[in-house]
């Protein structure tokens, strides 16, 4: 079969394309001529099937067209809703309003709910800050980051952030900045 035409070339010849050497080969090579005739038969068979009207029973609705068709749309809508919600939570200043009018007493009750190691570094400084004037910004940041000690933000990116706070305390080499610097005073 070496030197014989590929299927692509046969198709090109069938639709009037190809080059003269291919056409010449087709007239001389019996194998390729037989393949060409087979191609003609295949296309005619396909056309014949398409010409016949299919029996009504041959066309049927899929059992779950709604699910299949709407699944990606539903997922996209859900994702869009989540993104909108997240962006509103992050960027909309009104999301912080509940904390603006927080009194010192309420602030301390919230602080009590935070992890104890959040303020283990410099209680005196922290106390000074809170008694001086509790910043709603500081409080909001602390509440939002309640699960992670704010000191972790200041650790260098050397993998230390993955160490537990207890390890750091034991080693006595906690290189963090006090919590009080997490939020700036307005």
């Amino acid at each position, binding site marked *: 079969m070496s030197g014989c035409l590929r299927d692509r070339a046969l*198709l090109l010849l069938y639709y009037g394309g190809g080059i003269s050497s291919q056409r010449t080969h087709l007239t001389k090579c019996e194998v390729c001529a037989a393949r060409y005739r087979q191609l003609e038969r295949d296309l005619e068979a396909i056309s014949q099937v398409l010409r016949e009207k299919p029996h009504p*029973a041959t066309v049927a609705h899929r059992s779950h067209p709604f699910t299949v068709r709407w699944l990606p749309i539903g997922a996209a809508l859900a994702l869009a809703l989540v993104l909108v919600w997240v962006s509103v939570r992050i960027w909309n200043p009104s999301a912080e309003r509940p904390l603006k009018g927080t009194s010192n007493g309420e602030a301390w009750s919230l602080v009590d709910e935070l992890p104890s190691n959040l303020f283990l570094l410099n209680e005196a400084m922290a106390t000074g800050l809170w008694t001086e004037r509790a910043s709603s910004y500081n409080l909001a940041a602390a509440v939002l980051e309640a699960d992670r000690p704010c000191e972790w933000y200041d650790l260098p990116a050397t993998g230390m952030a993955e160490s537990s706070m207890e390890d750091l305390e034991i080693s006595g080499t906690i290189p963090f900045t006090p919590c009080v610097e997490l939020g700036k005073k307005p």
Partner: protein
Amino acid sequence: MSYEALYAAHHGEVLRLCRLLLANHHDAEEIAQEVFLKVYQQFQNMNQTELMMWRPWLIRVSVNACRDRRRSGWWKLWHGTNEEYQEANHPNPSRTPEEVVLSRETQGRIWRAFERLSARQREVFVLHHVDGWSTDEVAEMLGITTGSVKRYLFRAARHLRRMLGDS
């Protein structure tokens, strides 16, 4: 030629074309009705002595109507590939049951492969192979070049052979 005669002569062909292009029998019937409504309006407006090549005109209008239907947003959402060919069922008493099953299977494979072609490939393949138009005529009806018609035909045939060969 009267409108009734025109309808009788070409309705079947238009309906088959729409069915092949839309893969949905109900939509095909609807589009065929729309096409013949346009024919009727054309009949009202044209000079009775005017000669008109109705067949190419009908094909062109049908293809455009099917294309418009496919492009409509709701049709895409609800129909896209809403219907599929399950298996052909053309009883033939001269065949053995094995042959009938094989024939059904083959026809089903052909239909499934055909429905996976792009819209343009379907149009060109149907007009050329099923309806028997030349590549030049298809090009004129679809408003594309003859070379483009041949390219679409080539791709369609190659995809069909691949899909039928693989399955």
